[in-house]
């Protein structure tokens, strides 16, 4: 392993942010904290994006590794110990300076600190703890901090770090124990789930403390999250969703992130992905994840053993609705909140607007449009005062034919973002809509 001691901060930042980029979580949400005199920073509940990188992902936190030296040899990871890359490490001082100076200029919302495992899990966790302590206590940083818990580290260290951070996360990486064994020989599932449980218990205990003493220090106030790699092992979507659901239920996770596998290493046990990373699959998983967290869906309603993967041509909600046409159409002026939430084309915001607006008068389709309902999807499934918008057959084939036509373009955009499209005069159902919007065919 080549360890460089004499790199400049520029070079270190380039190496250690490049090594951190496969971690998806860059959210700064989940906690509202006012500024305090004598400190720098605050946190806002919704989270704030400060910039967007060329891949369209938001840059909210200064996402870096403390070091990219690692004792583990996980096959999917760019920092695996057998890889021949330049290795380096920040000092706690450098991390603090970068965070504060970026923060003052409003480049970032806070710090995301992860790390390769240097020497041992405890040693690395302690380095992270010392850095956070310096940042919070010497530099009086009051903004957002997201930190990784190192699997296998001493519970006491994890607890102490948790009182300094806003969000902690431990990456599950692969949904099943077999997958983990195959690709990450140094880790095991137990090592990952144990600290996860510890943080969950810490948050619950802390909640009671906060109820009694308002001044009690907050433990991981923005909750914990995790990440799973999509497409590195042969698990299907159903298994992924069941794991995610279990994590939400049993571990109170705030978020599960899905990361389309990008092959950075050549290894016989990794899949070759000639079509690029499985972005559409990742997109469908996120759509389903939202359905579970905000729309009251269960994983088993969306997928089953017999149909273990998501429909490529339809989003999970439309797909579900088409298989349950007996529940439709619903009457917008009378249906309750959760029934409306299950209508394709309606979201949390628009349903809330509908519920408050209909108290003061009957809604028609024109009004629904104002509330933000996507009528081109919703109109197959709703009635206003007993009437549908157009004469529509409530029939699976008929509706899915129409919905698929609209979805096809966006599917194409996601699954083949880097290639050029051959212009064709035939079998291109979405051509007319493209020409209408500005006369340019993409």
């Amino acid at each position: 392993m080549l360890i460089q001691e004499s790199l400049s901060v520029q070079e270190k930042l380039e190496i250690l942010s490049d090594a951190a980029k496969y971690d998806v979580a860059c959210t700064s949400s989940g906690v509202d904290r006012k500024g305090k005199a004598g400190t720098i920073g605050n946190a806002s509940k919704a989270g704030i994006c400060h910039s967007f990188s060329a891949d369209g992902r938001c840059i909210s936190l200064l996402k870096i590794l403390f070091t990219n030296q690692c004792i583990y040899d996980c096959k999917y990871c760019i920092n695996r110990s057998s890889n021949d890359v330049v290795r380096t490490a920040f000092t706690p001082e450098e991390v603090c300076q970068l965070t504060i100076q970026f923060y003052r200029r409003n480049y970032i919302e806070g710090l995301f600190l992860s790390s390769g495992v240097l020497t041992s899990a405890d040693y690395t966790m302690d380095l992270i703890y010392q850095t956070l302590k310096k940042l919070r206590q010497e530099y009086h940083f009051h903004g957002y901090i997201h930190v990784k818990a190192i699997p296998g580290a001493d519970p006491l260290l994890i607890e102490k770090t948790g009182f300094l951070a806003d969000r902690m996360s431990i990456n599950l990486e692969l949904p099943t124990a077999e997958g983990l064994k195959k690709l990450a020989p140094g880790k095991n599932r137990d090592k990952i789930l144990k600290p996860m449980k510890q943080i969950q218990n810490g948050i619950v205990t802390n909640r009671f403390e906060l109820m009694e003493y308002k001044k009690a220090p907050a433990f991981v106030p923005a909750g914990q999250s995790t990440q799973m790699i999509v497409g590195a092992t042969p698990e299907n979507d159903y298994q992924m969703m069941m794991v995610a659901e279990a994590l939400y239920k049993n571990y109170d996770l705030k978020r599960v992130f899905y990361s389309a596998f990008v092959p950075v290493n050549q290894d016989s046990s990794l899949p070759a992905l000639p079509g690029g990373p499985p972005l559409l699959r990742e997109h469908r998983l996120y759509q389903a994840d939202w359905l579970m967290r905000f729309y009251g869906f269960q994983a088993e309603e969306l997928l089953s053993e017999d149909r273990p993967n998501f429909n490529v041509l339809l989003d999970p909600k439309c797909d579900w609705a088409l298989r349950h046409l007996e529940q439709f159409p619903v009457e917008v002026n009378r249906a309750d909140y959760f029934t409306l939430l299950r209508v394709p084309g309606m979201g949390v915001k628009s349903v809330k607007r509908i519920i408050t607006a209909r108290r003061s008068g009957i809604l028609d389709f024109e009004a629904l449009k104002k509330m933000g309902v996507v009528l081109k999807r919703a109109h197959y499934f709703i009635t206003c005062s007993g009437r549908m918008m157009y004469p529509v057959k409530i029939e699976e084939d008929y509706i899915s034919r129409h919905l698929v036509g609209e979805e096809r373009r966006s599917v194409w955009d996601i699954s083949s973002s880097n290639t050029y499209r051959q212009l064709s005069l035939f079998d291109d159902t979405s051509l007319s809509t493209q020409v209408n919007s500005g006369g340019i065919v993409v």
Partner: protein
Amino acid sequence: MKTIYLCDSSIEGVLSGVYTAWASRKGHDNVKLRLKDDGATMELFSQYEEVPVDSLKADKVITAIRNKISEEAYEVVYKAALSNDMERADKIYRFLIYGFPVGAGVVSMLQNQAVYDMFQMCRFVDNETHLLTGFVRFTEMEGDLLVGRIGPKNDVIVLLAPHFADRLSGENWVLYDVNRKKAVLHPAYRHWYLTDFLPSDWEDKIVKTSVEDEYEDLFKRFRKSISIKERTNPICQLNHMPLRYRPYMPEFSQGLRDI
């Protein structure tokens, strides 16, 4: 004959217009509010009347909104007055006509066109404010001063100021709206204030601490190395960060696009 009241574009100006139009007792259908500088053509068969800014009248309207409709409705009116919609004066007037008899529930009655117009303006103002809380960039100047420049479509600087005052309470900073030539000044550990009396050459008088800010360069490098090449997606980036924000950001000083 229709009477058209021309009011000043500030919130006091608009609300003075509302008061005058209402108090004229000509009937709501026979009056209309327009901004003095909206640049629209004049209408035939109508008489024009200019309304001077009168903070007393504006205050009366504000008190009436807060007492007879709700605090939330006042917030809606205030934000709408900051929007860049050229017909905002008349839209606010129509909203109030509908709002006074209905009361507090009016803000959620989106099925009504007058309410919907207000909702749209507020949404635009709120969205732009939220984006700018992230997209504002401060540059370090000599004498411990941070200067941020923005060019927003709506007049959101007063909505941004509390956020940064809370966040950077210990810093001297200036937030300057290039389009409206006004600025929020924040002396360290003190309250912020808004001013539009700036000498025209104020920007030349303050100097950057160094020609090449080290951290500006570091951030550019960070942005580049954090992006995953296999996932490059400029359209997605454009949707989240429209081009109009980019001229004010140092990371785009070499060009508005990454690729």
